Every structure is written in C-alpha cells, then in structure tokens.
C-alpha cells in the first residue's frame, strides 16, 4: 500500500489493528467479525510490526522473554511458569535463520540490541503464531539502507515460507513494485489504484510517479 502523507494508509492499518475505532462499517477477518474487538483479542488473527523498532519489543525484557510473549500469546493470564523445558533450544532454532547473532543473546535485554536486530525480532515474533493477516507499518523506514534491505529480504522469506496474507505500507516505490502480488495506492482516503497479478508485475516506477503527481 502506497500513498502520500495523510492519504489514510496508517488510518486504515490502525483501524484494522484496533488502535483506532471504526466510525462506520464492518471489519471481517477470515470469517471473524472484529469491528468492536479490542486489540488484544484481535491478536489471535492478526499481528503487526511497527515502524519504530522500539515499539514492537519490550526493551526491559530479554530476547527470550519477548519471544515467550509472542509464543504463548493466548495465555497472558496463566499462572503457569512461563519458562518451559527445552525452550532455549527451540528459540535458538528460531533465531538462527535471521542471521543476526540473536541466538547467542537470548538473555540480553532487548534495549541493548541494534534497531535492525530489534526489528528482525519483532518480525519473528509477529509471524510466530502464523497469523491470518500480517500488518507491516513501514517497518523498514527507520533502518539504514543495508539493514532495511536485509529485513525486507527476511520478510519475503518468512511470508513465503508460511504463506502469510500480508499488508505492507511503504514509501519506497521500489519495494512496493518488487514485493507482493498486489499494489494499492491510497489518496485522500480513497483507493486510487488497485493492480494485482500480472498487471502489477508490469507496472513501472514512472507510471506510478505520474499517478502520484495527479
């Protein structure tokens, strides 16, 4: 999803995620009516990666504890011990493919990680429960170009591996064209362009830019 600042991209995303209440209309996700459901209960079906790497993880908690929050996300009121047998090895296996050295830092507080590491961890946490819908809110915008590329590639891998329905907001035209199989352009709160499949593959950056200018 692309669009100018103030076009309504984030409003749409926040409405889906539950941070903004919908003024009118219905939200249905995989057969569940979620219009009036609080954020926490929507988390059963959807996950979100925020733009700010600090937003997606709890900085005071360790890497393992953050992963536990995502892995046991339906049991937040449980009085069972959260540290489970064999958990360390399982988490290490999850972190290994990220190639960020996080597997050796399970007990490190997340606030000591770099932005890229935090965002990769957020992404992993968001996809751990294989949600029906993954929301990416400009999730590479706060990263340096190389890390941003790395996180995008990682996103592609995870999304394809689990076949996740994903909605990504981006300001990078190249990313919008390169990734995904549908492109939506929003302007003044309306969908201005909606191309998918082959038509999307054939779309050129220049065409998009002229549409933007209109």
């Amino acid at each position, binding site marked *: 999803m692309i669009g100018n600042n103030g076009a309504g991209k984030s409003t749409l995303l926040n409405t889906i*995620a*539950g*941070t903004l209440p919908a003024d009118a209309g219905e939200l249905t996700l995989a057969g569940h009516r979620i219009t009036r459901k*609080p*954020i*926490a*209960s929507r*988390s*059963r079906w959807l*996950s*979100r990666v*925020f733009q700010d790497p*600090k*937003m*997606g*993880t*709890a*900085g*005071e*908690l360790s890497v393992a*504890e953050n992963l*536990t*929050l*995502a892995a*046991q*996300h*339906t*049991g*937040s*009121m*449980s*009085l*069972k*011990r*959260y*540290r489970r047998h064999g958990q360390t090895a399982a988490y290490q296996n999850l972190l290994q493919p990220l190639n960020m050295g996080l597997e050796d830092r399970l007990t490190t*507080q997340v606030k000591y990680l770099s932005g890229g590491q935090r965002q990769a961890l957020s992404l992993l*946490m968001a996809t751990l429960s294989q949600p029906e819908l993954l929301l990416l809110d400009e999730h590479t915008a706060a990263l340096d170009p190389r890390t941003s590329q790395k996180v995008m590639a990682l996103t592609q891998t995870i999304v394809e591996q689990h076949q996740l329905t994903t909605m990504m907001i981006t300001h990078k035209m190249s990313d919008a064209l390169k990734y995904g199989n549908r492109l939506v352009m929003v302007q003044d709160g309306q969908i201005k362009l909606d191309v998918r499949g082959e038509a999307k593959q054939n779309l050129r950056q220049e065409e998009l830019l002229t549409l933007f200018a209109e």
Partner: protein
Amino acid sequence: MLITSIGQGLLWAPLAIGVFITFRILDIPDLTTEGSFPLGAAVTVSAMVSGQSALVASLLGFVAGCLAGWVTGMLDTKLRMPSLLAGILTMTGLYSINMHVMGKSNVPLLNQRVLTSYLPAGWSIDLQTIIVGAVITGVVMALLIWLFKTRLGLSLMATGNNSAMSAANGIYTDRMVIIGYMVSNGCIALSGALIAQSNGYADIGMGIGTIVIGLASVLVGEIFLRGRQMWVRLSAMVVGAIIYRFLLTVAMGLGFPVDDLKILSAGILVVVICLPLLRQKYQTKQQLKRYLKQIGVDSHATETSSLKRQASPEGLLSRDSK
C-alpha cells in the same frame, strides 16, 4: 538503634514493595498510597477492636488495599484518566472512607492481641517486631517472586514496559494495570496494618508522606542492591526500607523534632533521586576514558588541554567577542 531500624524497616518493607510494583513494574507514580496505607491501618484496627484476630484483621486490611487499588485502576484504564489524577482522586476519597471505617480520627488498640503478642512474651519487643516483619515480608516476597515467574507476571512486566506491544501480543493491558494497582495497594495497606499494630493505634493522618517514604525506599534500595532478577529487586526494597528507617532514626537521634521529619524525608528523596544520576554521569565518563585509552587516544592529553582551555581567560574573552 540499628536493631530497632531493622524491625521497623521490615514493617515498612511491604510499602516499599507496593510502590515498587506500580513505580517500577507498571511505570506509574501511584498516589493512592497515601490513602491505602491508612486504609489498611483503619480496617485492621477496627476489625481488631470489634473482636477479630490480628491475622484475620491484617488480611482484611490487605484486601481493603486491593479494593482501593481496583478503584484507581478502573479510573485509570476504563475512564482513561491520567494515572496521577486517578491516584489523587482515590486518595482524597479514601480520607472519608477511612473516617467512616474508624468512626473518629484516631482509634487506639487497647488489650487486643497484635501479631507480635503471639510470640513468647519474654522476647524483647525488637526481636518480636523483627520476626513478625521478617515472616510477613518473606511471605509477600515469596508470593511475588512466584507471580513474576508465571506468564501473568511476564504480562505485567511487558505491559509496564511497552503497552502497545503487549496489546498487540494478546495481553489485555487494562486488566494487567488493574491487577498491578491491586497487588501494589494491597501490599501498601498491609504495611499500614503492621505499622498500626506496632504503634498501637490507627490515625487518619498516618498516610501523609507515605508515597515519599515508599519512593525513597525504592530508590535507596536500588542504590545498594542492583540486579535484574526479581528476588534481588525485591530484596533491594527491603534493604531500602530498613536503611531509610535507619536514616530517620539517626536524624531523630541528632535532635530533629518529629515535625521536621517530613521535610527531611523529602530531602532524602531528592538526594537519592540525584545520586544515581550523578553516578551514571561518572560511570559514563569512566567508560569514555577507558574507550579512548583502548583505541589509543591519550585521554590525559585531551583532558588537560580542555582544562587549559577552560582556565584561559583569553579563550573565554575571545569566544565572547565573536
């Protein structure tokens, strides 16, 4: 003097632990403290006067504190009030409640058996206080250490640290905040119950300044004992409460009148807030020095040159003239 401070400190420790839960875990400065502390005292003493045993009465005090915390929690989360205001409102309302519970502004304990009376009468009052305080604080600590090992405890910590992320991970953050307020004010009220039994009376004014005492104990404790594990952090609160009592006892021994203790408390709080900041500054400087040495820059040279620059009046003048 030290022995008395230890005993008294252990009775005040649940207050420090309660304040720690809202202030450090939930990241909320909760002023309900000033109302829930005398509430615990009022409920406990009234229950004892009407014939309840000290243990049951103390538990009732704890429960009353939880209810006070629930009210603040509801104001904060459901009515979306700023947490400071929510605390102030509950605290103010509790003044009337406490008056109703007690019936008058001061209720003395007459011949009722307090918790320390269950111990052999031959033991000194200091020893009795230490044992009662240690047992109760120990139980509170054990329960909390257990709580923070559960998934619920982790949810509480996550909520205080990053509310948006916690909600996105399926945690009902409002519920967590309310639970936090309840546990915290329960502990605070329990402390009030213990102090009332130790003093031999409940008084409507005994809550004044308790938030400062609580915060000071938290900060003093963290200066002396630091760590990430929950048992270390909670032990720090106990240490903080004891040291704080000791400081007050020393001040009183030096001849400070009782009326001046409040301003002294505030003064101690200012000092213990500033101390860690200064220490951090110093440590950062040391770290920088070590780093510069490591990468081969002569830190001594740069420092003396900067000193020279500061000392030279011409330098200052020339900068002014620019």
